[in-house]
């Protein structure tokens, strides 16, 4: 019996992503049993819809974290994409131009991040922190402090519409996860990313293309943050300079709760999906109990630390 437990424990320790889903399932069950309103389809629908915004950013973050980078500029990019799209769309440009401009700029930010990390050899944390700061300033300059709102029909239906009862945002998120999962776990680039995360010098000496891999990861991450910004714009119909702020830390928390090592080289993209759903569910649960903002954050912080202690410890070597 104890042998069986040990074996299954070992298997679980081997797959931290499974942990994320296990905890998610338990929490959901508990929510349905003990909290009001979590047993309805509409609630479920709403949850996966809101989880999608965070989830899309977190998928991009996973790509970067796996190659032992980190992207702290996602909050800036989310705001950038929403603000730019809103401004262009509400001005002369129209929706399509707005979306194109927003995504192009997002990708550009990712490229700048990668360039700084690869060519200037600035540590990723500082580099993305700096681009995030620059973005915040640039947005202030661009909007003169007052960002505009805009109704872009395409984005509106993307964020609020449904496909066969499933929110489009969730479908989009799953689609993005599938593509990113293939990129990370099946393609050559993904192997290179894991190799870089596990040890840069050994990866270099094995001929891993450092530059190309870093560019792919950072540009994808920024692009996904841009997509999240657009969906958010569609969801709220308005843009703000701070709308991206929660996603900076929450996206990293989703990645880590999903079992990916923050040090890189180990993890699974699906875990991040579980992590993002779990975080969204926890937030919703805490909100449903009418806790104040402060208490909610305290409980969330304690829960995250507790969960990490249970299954995300780094091995001591």
């Amino acid at each position, binding site marked *: 019996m104890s042998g069986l437990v040990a074996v299954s424990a070992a298997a679980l320790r081997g797959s931290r992503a499974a942990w994320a889903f296990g905890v998610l399932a338990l929490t959901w069950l508990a929510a349905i049993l003990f909290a009001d309103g979590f047993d309805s389809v509409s609630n479920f629908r709403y949850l996966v819809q809101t989880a999608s915004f965070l989830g899309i950013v977190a998928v991009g973050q996973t790509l970067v974290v796996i190659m032992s980078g980190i992207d702290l500029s996602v909050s800036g990019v989310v705001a950038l994409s929403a603000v730019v799209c809103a401004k262009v769309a509400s001005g002369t440009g129209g929706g399509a131009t707005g979306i194109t401009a927003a995504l192009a700029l997002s990708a550009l930010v990712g490229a700048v991040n990668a360039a700084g990390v690869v060519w200037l050899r600035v540590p990723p944390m500082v580099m993305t922190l700096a681009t995030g700061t620059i973005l915040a300033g640039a947005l202030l300059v661009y909007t003169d402090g007052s960002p505009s709102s805009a109704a872009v029909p395409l984005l509106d239906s993307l964020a609020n519409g449904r496909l066969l009862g499933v929110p489009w945002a969730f479908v989009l998120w799953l689609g993005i996860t599938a593509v990113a999962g*293939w*990129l990370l776990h*099946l*393609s*050559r*680039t993904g*192997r*290179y990313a*894991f*190799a870089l995360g*596990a*040890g840069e*010098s*050994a*990866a*270099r*000496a*094995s*001929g*891993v*293309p450092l530059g*190309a891999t870093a560019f*792919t990861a950072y540009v994808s991450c920024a692009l996904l943050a841009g997509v999240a910004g657009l969906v958010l714009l569609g969801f709220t119909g308005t843009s703000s300079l701070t709308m991206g702020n929660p996603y900076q830390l929450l996206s990293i928390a989703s990645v880590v709760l999903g079992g990916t090592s923050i040090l890189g*080289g*180990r993890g699974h993209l699906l875990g991040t999906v579980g992590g993002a759903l779990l975080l969204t569910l926890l937030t919703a649960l805490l909100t449903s109990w009418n806790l104040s903002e402060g208490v909610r954050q305290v409980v969330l912080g304690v829960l995250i630390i507790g969960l990490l202690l249970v299954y995300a410890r780094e091995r001591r*070597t």
Partner: protein
Amino acid sequence: MAPLLSVEQVSKSFAGNQVLKEVSFTVGPGEVLALVGENGAGKSTVLSLVTGLLTPDSGRVVHEGAPVPRAWSPHRARAAGIGSVHQELSLNPHQSVAENVFLGAWPSRRGLVRARDLAARARPLLERVGLDIDPRTRAGRLPLGRQQLVELAKALASEPRLLILDEATSALDEEQVGAVFRVVRELRDQGGSVIFVSHRMAELFAVSDRLTVLKDGAVTATRERERTDHDDIVRLMVGRELSDLFPEKGTGTAPEPLLRARDLTVPGACSSVDLDLAPGRVVGLGGLQGQGQREVLRALFGLARHTGRITLEGRPVRLSSPRDAIRHRVAYVPEDRKTEGVHTARSVRDNLALPSLRTLAPGSRLTTVSRTAETRLVAELTERLRIRAASPAQEARRLSGGNQQKVALAKWLPADPRVLLLAEPTRGIDIGTKREIYHLLRRLADEGLAVLVTSGDTMELVGLCDEVAVLYEGRVVDRLAGPALTEERLVRASVMGTATETDTEKDTEKDTEADEPSALLPQQVAQAIDDIDDGDRPEPGSVAHA
């Protein structure tokens, strides 16, 4: 007399892999015990149990008549009078020598540690280990050998009654080893005890009273020094005789060179090195440690910035990054296996497939990697090099050093390299795997590869290579091939920095005994011959302080 320390029936496993099987030995007061064994025999593990870095699964360690408590730690061990020096440095490179000597136990007056006071207290300890340096120097600025002596001074600072020297002499020259011996004898005369581990047979016999031999995690024998000899100990260590350690060398005349390097210069490491690598030939780079051998290899693999002309099959090539080198089918097995050779945290499968992803996923970078092709490739390589792994999914860090090295080498083979560069290919590897690797390298050469090897092991260069270029302060001072390639000439060129003038017959001295340095040779030569037994002496600069 009651022993100072006795290790009783201790066993230890890591992840189901038993590395110690009921090991027992004792050390009495005023005694020097040598622990002997091949790499991976369990010496360091059993010593870690004594110093509190690890706890045994079963059995116990008795120190001064009482079993050590469960919560045994380096801190407590040090307080209880156990000092230790390991091959792996524990200095903080960013702090001063004096601060390092008293690391963790800085003498203070009213809570304040005064730099001048610290330096004054450190000086006598440094003198005791034969170091004449300013105690305020940053430890990281010292050459490796001196850092090792600072470690010894640090161990002495806590006035230990039991001193553990685990490969503490591996980076030291003759004079420095002499200083260590002085300390050991001093301690013994005062009734202290010493456990001594070294790869150099001569050192073991020079200083120990008893020798305990470990093999595969178990004690095979304990011998009084007077009642044993070199051959006896080697037999106990290896457990069998090894006759065909080295393969037959290549025959015939040297073919047209494949890779030609002219005027190869790496600033600060080597200058104007000319090298010709031909298919079917194994060329060695010899010399004392740190004469630029490593940088020549790194330059040829695009890892070190260099100038000079390099041609491959007559065409000039630029090797400015590993990717350039790999494109030209140059492969490299680095000496720093765990950071450059393999990804220790990744599976054997991932490690083996990494350089071959281009063939496993042809087309663009976004192509899916074929799992079936990968599995086939990994199975082939595992089979071909007889890599002993529990499964392809096993993490590389769980493999033994020899199998890790096989992985580091095997991963290049599918790319069909033309030039194979290996730095210290058998460092820290047991003798059986050494033999396998020597034979494999020769087979690869016979299949048409040009092989270049650096090694600090003279016997290895002489036994394996067709030709050896000897480096001295970054320049090639001698080239030895055919009958001229003998250990004696190699060592002479290494320490003198000049080529041997005439081609006198020295073949008879090929069998120079490691523990019987010829009286005719200068002191340094004797030292270098001592090193022949020393498979894993770290090179200055190779110790990472990250």
